[in-house]
């Protein structure tokens, strides 16, 4: 059913429009003046000022691999993150650790670990699924590159972002 919306009856002062026009001009001028005097602070001058110091603890930035206190890459190349990754950004080539190695008991390590940062959606599922607590989302957000190849983070780059992680589960130390 069609509904007729009643138009409000305007009195002569409203129909003159001039008071409304002046009021509108006053509002915009107030904004202009406050901005001119520097009273309004809305815009952050990005490259000079950054949010970095006030990012929350749970901020999800670029994913990165970590080493433990002994300097071992925590990743054991189980490939769970590779399988869970929704945009399939992660590519892992696992390899066996030679028996002469200090960490031979761990058996596997990622020979190559690539994250395509063009594909990554920063969902943090890799971090959630990791049984070894080897991959973490760090607070880096300005990830740039000139080519597509630049945007693929290889193992070295991931370890560089990740650094050393202290105080996590150390089950491999207890084994054997």
């Amino acid at each position, binding site marked *: 059913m069609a509904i007729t919306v009643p138009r409000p009856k305007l009195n002569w002062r409203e129909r003159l429009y001039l008071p409304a*026009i002046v009021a*509108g*001009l006053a*509002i*915009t*001028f107030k*904004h*202009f003046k406050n*901005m*001119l005097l520097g009273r*309004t602070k*809305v*815009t952050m001058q990005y490259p000079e000022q950054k949010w970095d110091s006030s990012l929350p603890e749970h901020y999800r930035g670029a994913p990165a691999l970590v080493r433990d206190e002994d300097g071992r890459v925590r990743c054991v190349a189980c490939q769970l993150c590779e399988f869970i990754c929704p945009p399939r950004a992660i590519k892992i080539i696992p390899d066996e650790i030679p028996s002469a190695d200090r960490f031979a008991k761990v058996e596997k390590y990622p020979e190559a670990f690539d994250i395509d940062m063009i594909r990554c959606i920063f969902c943090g599922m890799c971090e959630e699924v990791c049984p070894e607590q080897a991959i973490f989302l760090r607070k880096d957000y300005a990830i740039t590159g000139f080519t597509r190849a630049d945007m693929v983070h290889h193992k070295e780059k991931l370890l560089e972002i990740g650094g050393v992680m202290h105080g996590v589960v150390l089950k491999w130390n207890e084994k054997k």
Partner: protein
Amino acid sequence: MDSFFIITSLLKIVGILFLVLSMVSYAVYAERRVSAFIQDRLGPNRVGPAGLFQPIADMFKLLLKEDFTPRAANTFYYWLAPCLAVMPAIITMAVVPFGSTLFGVPMVIADVNVGILFVFAIASLGVYGIVIGGWASNSKYPFLGGIRSSAQMLSYELSLGLAVIPVFLLVGNLRLTSVVRYQIEHGWFIAPFVGDWMNPWKWLLTIPMIISFLVFMIAIFAETNRLPFDLPEAEQELAGGYNTEYSSMKFALYFLGEYAAMITGSAVIVTLFFGGWHFPGIPDGSHGWIFGLINIGVFFAKVAIMIFFFMWVRWTFPRFRYDQLMRLGWLFFFEIALVNIFLVGIILAYAPSS
């Protein structure tokens, strides 16, 4: 004598052209900054100190863009139209007195005795740039923009012309320099504080003058396609309007034309209602060249304030609907201007002659 006249005229032409063009580029910058400030943003502030070199960067950007001509366009008119949009706006400055005298040379390029008629004649040519541009593009949106522009010009030219008649009833002369001369003797038309300002008849005359100022200013808004009346280039409705198909420097010329029209429109308003280059207490150029320069400065300061007002209005009000625009033009401003003329006539007839 003759060669002196030619040389000074040429100097004035070059000076005014340079001044108007640089004002145009900085009006674009100012528009962006003012709009940003009104909307609590910052605007361009990176190129140079406070973004002051932004116009130069803009110019280079526009020069380096691809100059594209659509295949279906009528090439000759397509190229002609942007020039037609710029020329009238700049030519209008020729009759506007922008200063008193400098070294005894009157600071007006051509002090013709049909001043305001010349302004109207040339300013209304500006619509051809838009209409031809809209038609020659051979595209739907520019065509609609052109049609709207022509109808809008037609409607508002009328109230524009009628609104200034009260001014010339008082001055008794169409020469723009004598309008300024009259305002120096009797006070600005908007606020006659100079001379015999105790005379109540003069204050009675100020009421129709303010009405005529409002009508004239609104008509100038419509003439220059500024926001409450920017239907020809209504970006949200027409995807840019008459300049949709234009790119590179041809688009820049349209932009230039719009802002030049705004500057000359402001200059005409300042001359007619705000006393031109006159400011109470500042003598004219015959008292020394420094005062001549100050007078020019006063004139352009007034123009700048007027331009700020133009921008302020643009970023405050929404666009009129097309039928509202037509109704406003034909049913209100036309009548108001007409009644206003009679009002001034009656007051002048009964006022004791001064």
